[in-house]
């Protein structure tokens, strides 16, 4: 007797079919002897790092990183949340966010302004060694929607949110991008897996709603 739920089975079958499968012969199959395995792994890691970095640079895959570097290089200054809100960027009105997140006491709000673009960076923390950094920018792209890498795709009140999660073991991090008209927002958070990780999808959605609501206020 099959105790499985047929409706769920259909949902799972559809989803599983949509997961692309690499070729069985698509990855190197060479075996290493147990004695040499450690050395080979270390050497491979170094080679992957070198080759991967070169390839990524060549194809401009680090563009977001370099943009962030340029933003930092432009020079930012700590401001109050109220002053940051005068930029017109969508920002929350309170220093606290749902889930126990609160702005650091000092230097938690960083404003960078040039004639072409403006960014505001907010740094939050909450108990349990969790941290969160939210960058809101206009006039400069934090991400390219056509090329952004993601593992989850959320739609929150019509806003598309690209979510990627890293190191899904003891201390995972999550990164989420979304755009509100000509403003782009990046959320980056980390937190220990034992304490539930940094942010759930529902918590990300809640943050998106706060930013979206503040972008439409009169």
């Amino acid at each position: 007797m099959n105790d499985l739920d047929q409706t769920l089975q259909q949902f799972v079958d559809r989803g599983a079919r949509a997961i692309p499968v690499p070729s069985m012969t698509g990855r190197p199959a060479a075996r290493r002897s147990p004695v040499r395995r450690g050395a080979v792994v270390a050497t491979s890691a170094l080679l992957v790092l070198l080759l991967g970095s070169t390839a990524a640079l060549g194809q401009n895959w680090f563009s977001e990183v370099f943009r962030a570097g340029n933003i930092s290089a432009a020079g930012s200054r700590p401001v109050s949340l109220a002053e940051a809100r005068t930029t017109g960027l969508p920002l929350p009105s309170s220093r606290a966010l749902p889930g126990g997140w609160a702005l650091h006491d000092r230097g938690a709000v960083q404003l960078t302004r040039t004639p072409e673009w403006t960014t505001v960076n907010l740094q939050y923390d909450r108990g349990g060694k969790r941290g969160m950094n939210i960058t809101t920018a206009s006039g400069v792209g934090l991400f390219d929607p056509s090329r952004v890498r993601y593992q989850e795709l959320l739609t929150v009140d019509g806003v598309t949110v690209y979510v990627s999660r890293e190191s899904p073991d003891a201390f995972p991090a999550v990164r989420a991008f979304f755009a509100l008209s000509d403003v782009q927002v990046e959320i980056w958070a980390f937190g220990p897996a034992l304490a539930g990780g940094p942010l759930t999808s529902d918590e990300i959605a809640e943050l998106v709603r706060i930013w979206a609501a503040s972008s439409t206020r009169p």
Partner: protein
Amino acid sequence: MQESYARAYRGLVAAGASPPDAADALQDAVEAALRHASSIEDPAAWLFVVALRRWKAQRWRARLFAPLEWLRQENAIPPPGEDGVLLLNELRRLPSREREVIVARYIVGLSQRETADALGIAVGTVGATTVHATRKLRERLGGQDERPRSDAPAVR
């Protein structure tokens, strides 16, 4: 073998392995399967169980490769389609034990006893977890669990 490989691979990804880690773990499992071919009754189940254990044992490597994880994925394996993203999102919301049981039962097609052996838990735990996680997923997906709540799952 290709079909068994695909089923085991999708099961690993759905269980939480990154696509490159799933492919690596399966590569090892395939090589082991070739050495034990005569004694394997269900290749997909066998590959999944062996690869799942290997992936769990080597998960620490994820830390080493974490900064490059996106690069490896970008190069090797295309992202899942919309239905795949939906499935993975729902599974990620489950605790790991429930997720692994659901994957073993629904994707890989293991029986309760095979799932129990694969995950190192009791058959009764597999049954209860299957019912609980199934109900949770059905509720999230907007469906109703049509079976009577007292309907204990049978071992197959």
